[in-house]
């Protein structure tokens, strides 16, 4: 109780290598793409106008470059919010994020996401947790890989 040093974060390192079952299907809608585009200042008409998207060769409106985070963050909850992870979300800050698009996401896509715990490292009282969300379509073809690093601080007391 009177300790002054930073305590360990309690993140369970034995979960590295663990995968979480694919999420329920996420239906990508024109409305959600338009909301995300407006919020992130994306003005390209291919986000909102199907004709503009068709002109670029897409079957429907195209998602902004960071749209996949919507699916990734929902799926990450299966791990991050689980008591077994040992992650206190009130002590988490987002450290890194990376998207690899195997193909663009368009309205009408029906996608499922599988989360993998890739790495857990300790660095000076902070635990860095790397997760990888693999997003695939109905045919199980890869659509996007979203890698996220969360920094978890130890309790200060």
């Amino acid at each position: 109780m009177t300790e002054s040093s930073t305590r360990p974060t309690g993140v369970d390192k034995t979960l590295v290598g663990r995968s979480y079952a694919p999420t329920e299907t996420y239906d990508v809608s024109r409305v959600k793409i338009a909301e995300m585009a407006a919020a992130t200042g994306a003005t390209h008409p291919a986000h909102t106008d199907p004709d503009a998207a068709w002109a670029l060769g897409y079957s429907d409106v195209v998602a902004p470059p960071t749209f996949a985070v919507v699916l990734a963050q929902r799926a990450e909850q299966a791990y991050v919010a689980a008591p077994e992870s040992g992650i206190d979300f009130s002590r988490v800050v987002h450290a890194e994020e990376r998207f690899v698009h195997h193909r663009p996401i368009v309205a009408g896509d029906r996608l499922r996401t599988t989360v993998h715990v890739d790495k857990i490292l300790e660095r000076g009282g902070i635990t860095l947790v790397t997760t990888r969300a693999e997003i695939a379509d109905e045919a199980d073809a890869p659509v996007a890989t979203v890698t996220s690093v969360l920094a978890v601080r130890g309790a200060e007391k």
Partner: protein
Amino acid sequence: MNEQNETLARGARPLLTELEAGAELFRRTYAVDRDRLVRYAGASGDFNPIHYNDRFAHEVGLPGVIAHGMLTMGLAGSAVADWAGDPGAVVEYGVRFTRPVEVPDPGTAEVEVAGKVGAVDLGEGSVRVDLTVTSGGVTVLAKAQAVVRLG
């Protein structure tokens, strides 16, 4: 949500063979106010109260409400997509979050995005765009790089 656009007209796709490493490609400024934070929360599903509730933000030791890191990353991504002339051409995009963007009320925080040519890969038909993303002169995203397919 006024945007200042100093980039070339949309529709014109950049030519890979005209890009030189180090050359500046675009510069954009985005105004971030509380309205935008609420819109981003709804669009993304990230409802952490540190992004809209001053009392809560202070309780967890923040100076005030801060923007979602993913919102800042999204703004810079939009600048890249607009420059590319095709949002689906951004095949890779990664950042490191260095400092939070504090969003006053009333008022706005400004996020400035500058993109330059990192490297051109003629074989892949792609360009790496290196981004400088600052707010109030402070770097908020580091190692911000996007790969855009133009070939």
